[in-house]
């Protein structure tokens, strides 16, 4: 039963089976390798505009995806590549979209920040900070309206959590008992602004209480903790009790976008997170301790690299959209 008064008490840690740990490792590695490649392709000019990498935050979306069911919908901001891969969208289509090619998931017309998949229940990919909160609540409204038992899960940053529309959505979601999990991915920075420079109450989960929404703070570098908290939150929503708020403490290793002055935090801080809290390394260490061989882990890495290499090949060899596409899809 969710804890309605003090979400600060530690969430339970889900015990993951070996298979679950292996699949979490694989899913997180896919995101990391994909994002590393995206960063490189940006440097080569294949990807342009804004490109926000998810490196460091992989355990958040992977842990939540492990707790969600087929049919539950995900919505997020512009830092969306990881969410799409976790939802099972084809890495080729995602990479080709980053490159602005016709085989891209949005036919090359959306770009890094704007991708969607009706088939995989991924509702974007939104460039406007704060937008995922009401959109996620609206999807939950449709679920409740139809009574289909689906849960809408919507992600946004701790910087976005200051936008007014977030609180308008909290209130309506609680009032109408909408099945939506609001997930604040607190990676401590909004561009160059540390959370304490933009937010008076830095414990974001506490904002649930003002709206009668149960809330919890979670270690987002530990996929087990994310999974456990998400299990609890999603179950709460699915059983018709209304929304749930998770504040997931995480960290982005890279710059906000590709352009980043990198002066608002120290290199040591980034190094320390990488060395001591890396979400992927934590799983690797546990798997090795449980007797999984280095070889087996290397194989996983190789299989992931192969998927990413194929995505890059597809994206770089694909053609640009046909010029006639300029005028399609404007209205239905």
């Amino acid at each position, binding site marked *: 039963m969710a804890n309605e008064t003090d979400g600060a008490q530690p969430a339970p840690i889900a015990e993951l089976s070996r298979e679950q740990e292996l699949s979490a490792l694989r899913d997180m590695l896919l995101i990391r390798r994909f994002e590393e490649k995206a960063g490189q392709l940006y440097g*080569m000019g294949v990807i342009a505009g804004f490109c926000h990498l998810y490196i460091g935050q992989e355990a958040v979306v992977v842990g939540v995806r492990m707790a969600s069911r087929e049919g539950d919908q995900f919505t997020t901001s512009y830092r969306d590549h990881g969410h799409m891969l976790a939802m099972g969208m084809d890495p080729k289509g995602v990479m080709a979209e980053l490159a602005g090619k016709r085989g891209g998931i949005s036919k090359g017309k959306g770009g890094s920040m704007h991708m969607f998949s009706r088939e995989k229940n991924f509702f974007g990919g939104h460039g406007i900070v704060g937008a995922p909160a009401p959109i996620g609540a609206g999807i939950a409204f449709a679920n409740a309206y139809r009574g289909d038992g689906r849960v809408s899960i919507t992600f946004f940053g701790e910087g976005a959590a200051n936008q007014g529309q977030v609180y308008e959505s909290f209130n309506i979601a609680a009032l109408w008992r909408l099945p939506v999990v609001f997930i604040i991915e607190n990676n401590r920075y909004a561009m160059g602004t540390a959370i304490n420079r933009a937010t008076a109450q830095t414990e974001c989960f506490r904002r649930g209480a003002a709206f009668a929404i149960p809330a919890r703070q979670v270690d987002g570098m530990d996929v087990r903790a994310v999974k456990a908290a998400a299990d609890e939150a999603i179950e709460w929503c699915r059983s018709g009790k209304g929304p749930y708020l998770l504040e997931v403490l995480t960290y982005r290793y890279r710059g906000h976008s590709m352009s980043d002055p990198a002066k608002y935090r120290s290199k040591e801080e980034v190094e320390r997170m990488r060395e001591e809290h890396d979400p992927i390394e934590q799983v690797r260490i546990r798997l090795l301790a449980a007797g999984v061989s280095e070889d087996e882990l290397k194989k996983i890495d190789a299989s992931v690299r192969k998927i990413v290499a194929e995505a890059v090949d597809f994206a770089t060899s694909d053609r640009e959209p046909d010029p006639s596409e300029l005028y399609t899809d404007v209205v239905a």
Partner: protein
Amino acid sequence: MSINVLMPALSPTMEHGKLAKWLKNEGDKVKSGDVIAEIETDKATMEVEAVDEGVLARILVPGGTENVAVNTPIAVIAEDGEDATAIESTLPPPKLPGDSDAAQTAASVAAPAPKQAAAPAPRAPEIPSDVTMIPMTMREALRDAMAEEMRRDSGVFVMGEEVGEYQGAYKVTQGLLQEFGAQRVLDTPITEYGFAGIGVGAAFAGLRPIVEFMTFNFSMQAIDHIVNSAAKTLYMSGGQIHSPIVFRGANGAAARVGAQHSQDFSAWYSSVPGLIVMAPSNASDAKGLLKAAIRSDNPVVFLENEILYGKTGDVPALEDFVLPIGKARIARAGTDVTLVSFSIGMTYALAAAEELAKDGIEAEVIDLRTLRPMDTASIIESVKKTGRCVAIEEGWPQNGVTAQIAAVVQEEAFDYLDAPVARVTGKDVPMPYAANLEKLALPSTAEVVAAAKAVLYRT
């Protein structure tokens, strides 16, 4: 197989940067994720990472090199054990700064972003002919305008996202925090609706806020306060309450940033009575207009352009250079056809005028500078002389600024027209991301030339 490491682009509009330093030496082994170099622009730094395992076989551009064009090969990573000397022969020649087509040869995968010529800025009539001119970027000119007004009037302050410690997302507020302190240069949370409203309240109470929107795309969150609170209050209060506030920031398309980040609000805001709307095309106008905007007792929407921020223009070295509000500038005199535009649209208009001149067509080019109040008298005067008019903007065609120009010209100079007014606008679609589609979606010099020839019945 060896791979070339290319000079990356840090931002959508970066063309050159400094290769600050190498963190690895030739011969060092590198693995995925290792930082091998640092690059810099005036805006940002970025770490260049190796993504594959291998050996840093050759460094092609030494640390400390300025002005390295995007996509220049800067190093070669060879597979471990590969013969680095064998690599040399397969390399493209290293490119030198200023070698303009080198980016083309080096870009094995993508075409470089289309380059636009800086709009030349013939001296505005307001500038005395004996004044010294100082070249500076539009970014610097805007910063200087704010700094000068902040020195002059202690009620002027700046607020917005990342305007202080970060020095501005596009570095327009660079140095202001250092000079004026945190009481007058305020970093806000990401809360456009809230801080726009707070700015309006402060203006009602007699301060002179400059509210920066990181880009005007995000002003849509705040448009209610711009229109309902700032624009209408003087009227609703029977002339008692003024809103001396400036809303400024980058407007319109940048490069490859997609539909939600590429919107032009010129037509939106310039339709609102009570607002002043400015959209400068060059550094000098930007400075003189922004100073006028800050001094105005009316709310001003000041539309800048990210692509123009880095363009250099001559700015008069005057103690106090303030331009009149609502006065257009004849950017090029001519007799055959009138081209009217503003902001980045001037880039196409002026380039088209050059093209047309090659065919013996002398275009008069008018830079509106202020969209509201619009200097329709200058347009009409020119059209009476030329009998033909082409209006150009990057925004959407329906209800666009150019639609307004066409309406005014036919209302006030119908009898002088030898052809219907032609318009060149952004296409009637959300901005696509793909490079080829984005190019098609934006106006081009060729379209302006074609429109001018059409109204002249020439081919």
